């Protein structure tokens, strides 16, 4: 509604002023193109909100039904790592915002630097997630693969006990490099028995939702890397400047959205049971 009309006076003659190389033929002006692209991204984010919204609704319903078990299940997650990831991701949002800003003021070199920083932070995030998931697998919290609630609870108690007096830093390092004491994995019979336990079933629903939500979130980040690479490529060829930086801004919107999803996932998944145990 806006772009078309403000430009209407010049529209008739736009052919005369030579096209900006980035202006597609069906747009009247860069302005219109910019507005369209930004709106397009926002519309896409609307669909994303509802896409995650389905998951959040499922989460809410089960949370209401199985409140206690959800808290206990949540207490199995590692708040330190969750927090670390929150910080990393917010930082990456900052660098992304800076990348957009660099484009707006036409500093190509800086765009590349900030995009690079964003990508590295994003990779760090996924790296931490990798260690978390690996740990979940080791203590038998992955539905289908090996879920065994009793076993996981035991391991958790043990770990709390062992690590009680260690300083924070060595605890943190231990999360990545510390190797696990060997435990006899639960037998098939134990797992089968565990699956009959209503509590285990409820905790498992939590973990299904946990993996679905964080998994889909991670998938969004991976897609984000692809987009960053593409934008970085164009940036390196000097495509962007104060005149035209739409793709950088669109990418920024996407990345910030992914950040926002995590801002909600963190308390809903990690902090839900934090008050129960002084673990981790």
């Amino acid at each position: 509604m806006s772009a078309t009309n403000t430009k209407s006076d010049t529209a008739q003659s736009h052919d005369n002023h030579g096209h900006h190389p980035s202006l597609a033929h069906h747009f009247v002006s860069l302005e219109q193109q910019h507005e369209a692209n930004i709106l397009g991204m926002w519309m896409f984010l609307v669909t994303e909100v509802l896409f995650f919204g389905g998951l959040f609704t499922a989460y809410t319903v089960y949370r209401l039904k199985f409140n206690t078990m959800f808290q206990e299940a949540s207490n199995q997650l590692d708040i330190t790592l969750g927090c670390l990831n929150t910080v990393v991701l917010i930082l990456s949002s900052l660098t992304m915002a800076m990348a957009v800003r660099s484009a707006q003021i036409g500093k190509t070199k800086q765009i590349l630097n900030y995009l690079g920083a964003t990508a590295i932070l994003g990779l760090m995030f996924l790296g931490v997630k990798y260690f978390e998931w690996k740990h979940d697998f080791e203590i038998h919290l992955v539905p289908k693969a090996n879920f065994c609630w009793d076993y996981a609870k035991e391991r958790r108690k043990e770990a709390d006990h062992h690590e009680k007096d260690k300083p924070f830093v060595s605890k943190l390092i231990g999360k990545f490099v510390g190797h696990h004491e060997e435990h006899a994995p639960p037998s098939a019979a134990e797992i089968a028995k565990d699956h009959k336990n209503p509590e285990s079933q409820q905790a498992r629903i939590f973990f299904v939702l946990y993996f679905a939500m964080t998994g889909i979130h991670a998938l969004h980040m991976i897609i984000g890397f692809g987009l960053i690479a593409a934008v970085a490529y164009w940036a390196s060829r000097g495509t962007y400047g104060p005149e035209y930086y739409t793709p950088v801004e669109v990418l920024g919107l996407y990345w910030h959205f992914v950040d926002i999803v995590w801002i909600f996932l963190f308390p809903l998944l990690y902090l839900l049971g934090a008050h129960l145990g002084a673990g981790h």
Partner: protein
Amino acid sequence: MSAHNSANVEAHAGHPHHEPASLVVYFSTFSALMILTILTIWAGMQDFGALNTPIALGIASFKAVLVVLFFMHVLHSSTLTKLTIFASMYFLGILMVFTLADYLSRGWTGQ
């Protein structure tokens, strides 16, 4: 129609997206987000009973609003963008509220 253009001017006067936001804005937003993160973790560790979740979600929403307003520049965006965000929240709300309307009112009848 005589008034045909006035309806369309809509929040477009100052080409806002051409002016990059100042660094101060970005860094204060970032600091606020960090502080809120610490706050939410601290709050998570306490047991406020029924208030646990509202507090956690309240802080998260506040953080999200900061990101939306400053990192995503919505503070200076068109009304349409704001409307779009509002719409997404509104329909997400419908999904949740009407679904829960069923779940929460199920036990009401005695028999």
